[in-house]
């Protein structure tokens, strides 16, 4: 049965454009301009969903975005708001909360499950026995479906952008539009955000108004206004960081605008409040604004025989709309009179009759209620405001706002269209002036900015916009629903208060009132009113509950946007990719883990020569008179007498003595040093040095440049490394007596000038680390491979390096040490020079040395040589954990497993046999070794 009315004066539908769509598997026809809900209502559909807990049938309540009863599934998209989403041709729409089905009688489900559904049922009913929780979960899921997600939905990149409006206006009704216009005319860059599909607020469904046309024209005429319709300001955070969700920018995808607004104007208007009485959720019970929208915007008859319960002009206007549309009005109940009222609504699948307080029962399929307004103060609360209840107007009003947030229009008070526009216009000017002041401050405090224009402004007088008197109407004489989304009734809130949840914040959490997808917009004041009655307080005493972001839900995709974590690549990454490297992400770097066979890479390096890309190593260029003083201070060991051309290993600890980083530093010139750090510690060390230089040693002359990315670093390791490098150098003498272990040279390698060559060795082999300007890194790598082809040169990856360093017993910061490992515990006592006057961590390291470390890092070998205990395996004694394996590998060189581990000090004595507990629960004995190195303990190879 069609409910479509003949053409209405301000309708937004295009009768020439019918659109076919699916509802619950059947084809329906609507019109372009329809929402999904208006099209279905026009087609005679009255039940759209089943309620969350009791599975009561639900129909249109507000006919807008915040309608709690109109959540539907559209194809693969769940939780679509049918009161807001525009109809598209072929849309596949389905009810999503309809179990057992839209048609089954509500009472069957109620009788089955009602006993579970007392207030706080989440906390009571489904907790015990624990073993049944999966079953509870399964049942609840089916019971309260939130729609379904299709895992095969294609990935969509959603946009995200930053904006810097001078004035951001939330709400595109008459006051918001007026504010945007005057702000723009005052020179402000304005962003005007409106939740609906078009500007106008409540004017769009009133009689055609010249004021609306004029406002729209003026908005269009201002180039300084960016209009975002079908968008919502969903959060206001510190310092006016404002989140705007822009819908439908592409298809229906949401995208996020992150705006730093100089002034935020909240012109959110008011939201009509439902009335609480028995049967208030029956399909056919609607708010006056819903009725006005249905008739005027979409030419839909909301019913055939109406009772209108009105306490204000909106209800009166709805009655007039109904009359004009030719719908029978059975009764108008003037709720402004204390002796008139609605007692209950009756019906099964929809409204059938209304019981009035005078004892009469009127048959009707439509009950219109107009009992008052809620001010959606969310954004103001987020800005620190605590709105105050005004009983004379029966609503909350803004109280104290910070300087950068203003409120305009209906959220402040009532008036004619002209009065609302005048209020918005004045607020717009003042908002622009404040934004201008803030902008000038920022320009003055930003060296790169242009000088602000001179001149200030007198504060703009804002006309008073008092709220109209309104009778206080929240709760009828019978029990009804307060929260439609969460199926919470007045008596649930009352019994929860009686159970002791006598603070509104507790009561709402316990009953979940205001915590559903509508987030309190319809129900919060009614909830406060019930709580007030139950606890013998006034609404003003209770105040509102806390409003937190988001004002309206955001899809996770919009929050994710198209952000991707940046990754770092070495100058050799492309080569690794095309030569079979297995990539591993270490820190932000993409690195080659191995090229197929890490054990073979180890053997080749130990027997011939291998090259590894160690470009991610941190590198810091240090110049100036006081570099040695800085090194003395940040390293635990001595630096004052390091000669030019020499390299030294250095250990850094934090002030609490915990190992922070390690690496080698070379002295390249009299006042020129080259520091290397661990790859993961590069940024930390750079910042660390800056911190000391900026906050404590401000007079020291140290010029520091982070050059990690400026050099490709290639370690050439193995007995044939000298021979290989010899083929590529001209001005560097590689002979051992000229270029010894822990020396550094600068010169030309493979025709590339300004290379730094360090003779160091993490692998334990004779090795030269060539640091080549990054743009020539690939050239160097290929030159080494070519020059070494007859020497058996082959690249090796991180895994082979890890094996070789473990064979040599070198620890890795963060792998073999943790956030509690101090210098002595790491076995680094030899590098801690307590006799220095001062260095970072000195007092705590002195204390550690005096008391002896609680744990020590030791080398371990399992008695079963082929057993490799997984890293993090525990070292136990009886029931006590006394240590753990921090690194373990099978050594291809030794043919046995080798480990490092942390053990309690009394087990750290060489020769001690400890017990390793494996993840399987099995235990394995292992011996504590004398030296950290398992291989070439005296270092013959690397010194050769």
């Amino acid at each position, binding site marked *: 049965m069609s409910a479509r009315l003949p053409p209405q004066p301000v309708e937004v539908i295009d009768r020439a454009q019918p659109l076919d769509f699916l509802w619950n598997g059947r084809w329906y026809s609507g019109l372009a301009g329809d929402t999904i809900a208006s099209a279905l209502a026009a087609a005679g559909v009255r039940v759209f969903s089943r309620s969350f807990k009791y599975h009561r049938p639900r129909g249109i309540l507000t006919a807008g975005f915040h309608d709690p009863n109109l959540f539907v599934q559209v194809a693969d998209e769940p939780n679509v708001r049918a009161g807001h989403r525009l109809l598209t041709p072929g849309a596949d729409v389905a009810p999503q909360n309809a179990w057992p089905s839209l048609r089954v009688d509500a009472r069957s489900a109620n009788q089955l499950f009602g006993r579970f559904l007392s207030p706080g049922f989440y906390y009571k009913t489904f907790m015990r026995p624990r073993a049944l929780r999966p079953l509870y979960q399964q049942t609840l899921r089916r019971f309260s479906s939130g729609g379904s997600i299709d895992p095969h939905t294609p990935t969509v990149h959603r946009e995200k952008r930053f904006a810097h409006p001078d004035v951001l206006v939330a709400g595109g009704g008459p006051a918001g539009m007026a504010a945007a216009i005057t702000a723009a005319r005052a020179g402000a860059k304005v962003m005007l955000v409106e939740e609906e599909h078009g500007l106008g607020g409540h004017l769009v469904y009133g009689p055609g108004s010249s004021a609306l046309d004029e406002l729209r024209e003026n908005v269009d005429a201002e180039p300084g206004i960016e209009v975002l319709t079908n968008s919502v300001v969903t959060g206001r*955070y510190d310092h006016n*960081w404002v989140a705007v969700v822009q819908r439908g920018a592409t298809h229906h995808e949401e995208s996020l605008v992150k705006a730093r607004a100089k002034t935020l104007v909240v012109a959110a208007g008011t939201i009509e409040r439902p009335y609480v009485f028995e049967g208030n959720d029956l399909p056919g019970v609607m708010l006056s604004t819903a009725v006005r929208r249905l008739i005027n915007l979409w030419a839909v008859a909301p019913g055939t025989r109406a009772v209108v319960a009105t306490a204000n002009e909106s209800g009166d206007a709805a009655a007039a709309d109904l009359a004009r549309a030719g719908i029978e009005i059975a009764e108008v109940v003037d709720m402004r009179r204390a002796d008139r009222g609605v007692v209950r609504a009756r019906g099964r699948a929809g409204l059938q009759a209304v019981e009035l307080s005078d004892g009469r029962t009127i048959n009707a399929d439509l009950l219109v209620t107009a009992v008052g307004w809620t001010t959606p103060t969310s954004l103001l609360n987020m800005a620190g405001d605590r709105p105050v209840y005004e009983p004379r107007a029966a609503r909350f009003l803004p109280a104290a706002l910070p300087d950068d947030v203003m409120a305009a229009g209906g959220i402040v008070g009532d008036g004619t269209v002209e009065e609302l526009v005048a209020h918005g216009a004045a607020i717009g000017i003042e908002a622009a002036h404040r934004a201008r002041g803030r902008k000038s401050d920022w320009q003055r405090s930003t060296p790169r900015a242009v000088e602000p224009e001179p001149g200030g402004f007198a504060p703009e007088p804002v006309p008073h916009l008092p709220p109209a008197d309104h009778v206080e109407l929240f709760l009828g004489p019978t029990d009804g629903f307060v929260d439609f989304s969460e199926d919470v009734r007045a008596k649930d809130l009352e019994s929860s208060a009686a159970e002791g949840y006598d603070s509104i914040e507790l009561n709402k959490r316990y009953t979940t009132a205001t915590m559903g997808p509508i987030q309190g917009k319809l129900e919060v004041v009614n909830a406060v009113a019930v709580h007030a009655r139950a606890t013998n307080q006034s609404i003003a005493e209770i105040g509102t509950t806390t409003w937190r972001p988001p004002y309206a839900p955001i899809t996770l995709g919009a929050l994710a946007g198209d952000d991707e974590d940046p990754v770092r690549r070495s100058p050799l990454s492309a080569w690794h990719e095309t030569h079979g490297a297995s990539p591993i992400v270490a820190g932000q770097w993409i690195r080659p883990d191995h090229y197929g066979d890490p054990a073979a890479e180890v053997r080749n390096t130990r027997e011939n020569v291998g090259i590894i890309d160690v470009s991610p190593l941190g590198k810091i260029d240090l110049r100036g008179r006081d570099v040695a003083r800085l090194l003395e201070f940040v390293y635990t060991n001595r630096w004052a007498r390091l000669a030019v051309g020499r390299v030294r290993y250095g250990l850094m600890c934090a002030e609490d003595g915990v190992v922070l980083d390690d690496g080698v530093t070379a002295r390249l010139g009299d006042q020129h040093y080259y520091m290397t750090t661990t790859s993961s510690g590069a940024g930390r060390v750079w*910042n660390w040095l800056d911190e000391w230089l900026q906050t404590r040693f401000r007079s020291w002359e140290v010029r520091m440049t982070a050059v990690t990315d400026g050099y490709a670093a290639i370690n050439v390791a193995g007995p044939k490394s000298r021979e290989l490098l010899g083929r590529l150098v001209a001005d560097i003498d590689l002979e051992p007596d000229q270029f010894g272990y822990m020396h550094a040279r600068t010169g030309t390698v493979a025709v590339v000038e300004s290379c730094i060559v360090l003779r160091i060795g993490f692998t334990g082999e004779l090795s030269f680390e060539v640091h080549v300007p990054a743009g020539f890194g690939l050239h160097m790598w290929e030159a080494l491979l070519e020059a070494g082809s007859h020497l058996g040169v082959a690249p090796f990856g991180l895994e082979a390096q890890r094996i070789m360093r473990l064979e040599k017993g070198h620890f890795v910061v963060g792998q073999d040490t943790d956030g509690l490992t101090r210098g002595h515990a790491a076995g680094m006592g030899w590098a801690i020079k307590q006799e220095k006057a001062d260095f970072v961590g000195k007092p705590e390291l002195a204390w550690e040395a005096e008391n002896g470390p609680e744990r020590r890092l030791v080398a371990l070998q399992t008695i079963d040589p082929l057993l490799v205990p997984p890293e993090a395996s525990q070292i136990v004694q009886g029931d006590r954990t006394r240590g753990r394996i921090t690194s373990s590998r099978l050594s291809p060189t030794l043919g046995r497993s080798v480990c490092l581990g942390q053990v309690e000090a009394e087990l750290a004595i060489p020769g001690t046999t400890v017990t390793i507990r494996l993840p399987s629960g099995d235990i394995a004995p292992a011996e504590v070794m004398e030296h950290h190195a398992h291989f070439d303990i005296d270092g013959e190879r690397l010194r050769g």
Partner: protein
Amino acid sequence: MLLIVCPHCGPRNSDEFAFGGEASSRPGADASPDTWRSYLYDRANVAGWQTEQWFHVAGCRRFLNIERNTITNEIRRVRDASEGHD
């Protein structure tokens, strides 16, 4: 996202900065163990105005002393740390 008006860079989002906690002064190496422990591990954790250190790591790379109200997040003073703190 806080807005920090860096004296060198102008207003910037706080995600460009690294928070360094309450500003404090390092005692001399010869200070008593109690003084050292207090410097390392004790924090006033005030509810209200606090001077704290921030590092503009993705901006000018300067260390800053910022007076921030830990309850309201209001920021009333930002200075380069080289100007010291009081």
